[in-house]
């Protein structure tokens, strides 16, 4: 295999404790050698990339994306979704199982991982916790794990029955898988299309109360507590409310293995950004109040949040060009996450660059146990993002690599431009 030398970049590898100028030699899909800047020389057949003035970091990892295959290729495919991932600096994405059919079998998990899917970066399937994500009978987690699944969830169809959730947590613990919950008590959100509150009232829309999220997080934490098994791992997907964040905070203080992720839209936007029925500001969980949004920022800054995950949820344009209450939930996020995190978390709210990058790589890798990812220590996968941290640029949805254009961040200023994304030693994306 070819070798690739990244010369003279500024390496930030939080997991390895590196923050300084380095040369990096990638060989056979792995990190082969790291040396002081200017010290490693390309040998015959080694391609060389000049990273002078650029930041070199472990490839970003998004543990919450919807790639829509199998079954919904008109929205996105594994190929187009991972192309968008590469453009956004991501080298690994964890794909949610709400496909058609639902990924509740080893067969579908393997289908997603087949080379014919044309993935540009590494895909980690997350399998359904229950048959058809119907919340009734639990899948064969051991078989799913050996087929390549890294966690189980009924994302979008939260497990409401205590008995089923308890059994899911116990069964996942036995095989060493994490349980991810989309926390929403759907009995409280029937017919609702945005956050409950004065804005929803004013717009004449039915609201999803914050308690629909927090009460299920509290229920899940109670079930984890009752299991009394230190290996049990509950991960709260796309946390959006102050009350849910508080529940996670308390669980952690009590020594439970409860983690959470926050999406960029939940730490940046509020229900006010729905404006007059902008369907690109409609997602589930919905944009919340300013107090909730501020709690997400605080959770990130004070370290209770374990990962930034985008909940990349592509939809066809025609599906979003409808009445607000009829539009599907979700927005894209893979191409805007880094630019928004650098612009807001780092530049505006002064979170150190290393911590921003850790939330986008080292921590999510650790959270799902993705071995050899999230760091550029010698022997790790050659998953690298190289970006210019100083460049400000405007995101244009029409230039996306995704099939979908449903983003509220069209026209927003981004900080930091990806120059190269390298997936297991191959250049998966290079900016023009």
């Amino acid at each position, binding site marked *: 295999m070819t070798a690739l030398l990244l010369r003279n970049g500024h390496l930030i590898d939080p997991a390895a404790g590196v923050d300084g100028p380095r040369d990096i030699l990638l060989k056979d899909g792995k990190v082969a050698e790291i040396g002081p800047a200017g010290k490693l020389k390309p040998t015959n057949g080694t391609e060389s990339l000049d990273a002078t003035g650029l930041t070199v970091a472990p490839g970003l990892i998004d543990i919450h994306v919807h790639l829509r295959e199998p079954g919904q290729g008109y929205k996105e495919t594994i190929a187009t979704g991972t192309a968008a991932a590469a453009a956004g600096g991501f080298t690994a994405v964890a794909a949610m199982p709400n496909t058609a059919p639902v990924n509740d079998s080893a067969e579908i998990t393997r289908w997603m991982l087949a080379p014919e899917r044309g993935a540009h970066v590494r895909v980690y399937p997350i399998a359904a916790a229950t048959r058809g994500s119907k919340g009734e009978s639990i899948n064969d987690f051991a078989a799913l794990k050996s087929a390549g699944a890294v966690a189980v969830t009924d994302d979008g169809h939260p497990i409401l029955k205590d008995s089923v959730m308890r059994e899911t947590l116990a069964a996942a613990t036995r095989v060493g898988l994490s349980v991810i919950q989309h926390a929403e008590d759907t009995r409280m959100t029937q017919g609702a299309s945005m956050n409950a509150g004065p804005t929803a009232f004013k*717009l004449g829309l039915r609201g999803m109360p914050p308690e629909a999220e927090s009460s299920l997080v509290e229920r899940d934490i109670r079930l984890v507590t009752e299991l009394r098994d230190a290996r049990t791992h509950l991960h709260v997907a796309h946390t959006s409310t102050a009350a849910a964040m508080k529940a996670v905070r308390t669980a952690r203080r009590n020594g439970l293995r409860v983690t959470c992720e926050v999406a960029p839209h939940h730490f940046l936007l509020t229900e006010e950004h729905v404006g007059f029925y902008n369907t690109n500001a409609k997602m589930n969980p919905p944009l919340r109040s300013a107090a909730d949004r501020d709690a997400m920022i605080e959770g990130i800054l*004070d370290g209770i949040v374990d990962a930034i995950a985008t909940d990349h949820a592509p939809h066809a344009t025609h599906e979003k060009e409808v009445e607000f209450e009829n539009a599907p939930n979700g927005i894209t996020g893979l191409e805007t996450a880094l630019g928004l995190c650098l612009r807001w978390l780092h530049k505006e709210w002064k979170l150190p660059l290393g911590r921003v990058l850790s939330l986008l790589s080292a921590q999510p890798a650790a959270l799902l146990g993705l071995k050899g990812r999230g760091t550029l220590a010698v022997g790790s996968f050659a998953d690298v993002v190289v970006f210019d941290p100083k460049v400000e640029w405007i995101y244009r949805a029409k230039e996306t690599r995704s099939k979908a254009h449903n983003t509220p961040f069209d026209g927003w200023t981004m900080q930091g431009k990806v120059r190269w994304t390298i997936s297991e030693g191959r250049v998966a994306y290079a900016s023009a």
Partner: protein
Amino acid sequence: MTAAAIAAPVRRQLHPPPVAPSPFPYNKGSLLSVQDLTLDAVSHLLARASALENMDPLVRDRILLKRRVALLFYESSTRTRTSFELAAKGLGADTTLISNLSSSIEKGETLKDTGLTLRALGAEAIILRHNSSGAAWLLEETTRLPVLNAGDGMHEHPTQALLDLRTVLAHMRPGIEAVAQDTLAGVTVTIVGDILHSRVARSNMLLLPRLGARVLLCGPPQFLPELATGAGPGISIERDFDVALQQSQVVMMLRIQAERLAGQQIDLEQYKASYQLTGQRLASHAPAALVMHPGPIIRGLELTAGVADGSQSVILEQVTNGVAIRMAVVERALMGTSTKAGHA
């Protein structure tokens, strides 16, 4: 507990991304919300309503002669549809009615495609009644035509608020057409009943306080959440109907919108005991108040037949005022706000 109380203490001043200003309305002839109208624009519409109402029909007929106006109705309607149609025709426009029950909407055509089709057929303005909140915004964004919101879901019904204002002014401030911030100072308007599902309530509570009126909302928690007062300034809640009536110069009764209850159950006998406007209640607590209702009224439910037909009722005046107001609104849609000279 509020979300703010649960949140970790904020350690620094956050300056999050601002909300971009609304691009609506795209077309200055549109009337999507009462909030699109300045008080000057409201005054102008009131003046034009009177002028057009008093004009020789054969002269009025030429104002929009052969202009094309489409009425796009996804919900049944008697008053709004007929008065918009009479208004447009009274100005000489050609109208066409498209309803969801006898059009390609039944075959699955989207609002966007129906709107674009009407535009291609030559429609110069679209009057839209729709069961989804925000539908008028979607239609305006996709067609860029003047869109007149004739009721969108639970959201707004701006021409109803304007005709209600005209009715209130005729009784409380006779002769006044140019409105200002204090025109309705000292006037309490109580809106009673199913506020949650009512677009009439929302448009009125957003418009009347801007003229100095105090809006009291009255109804059970099921139909009137506490956060309703956050919709705008000048809005408060009084759940005791009798107490509200005692303070009111105007009382607007609302129908329970059974079609929007979404599974909610309501005890009608208990509702009537608490919130039905009866002759006795009216005589005891508000013997001089105007009784209004946007229609359709359900006699014997939100109000008794005696009150509906009684001397304090201005329900049919509201209907009549609807034609005048909608003439002014349709004229504004097609003439543009800058061409008012020559028509006054």
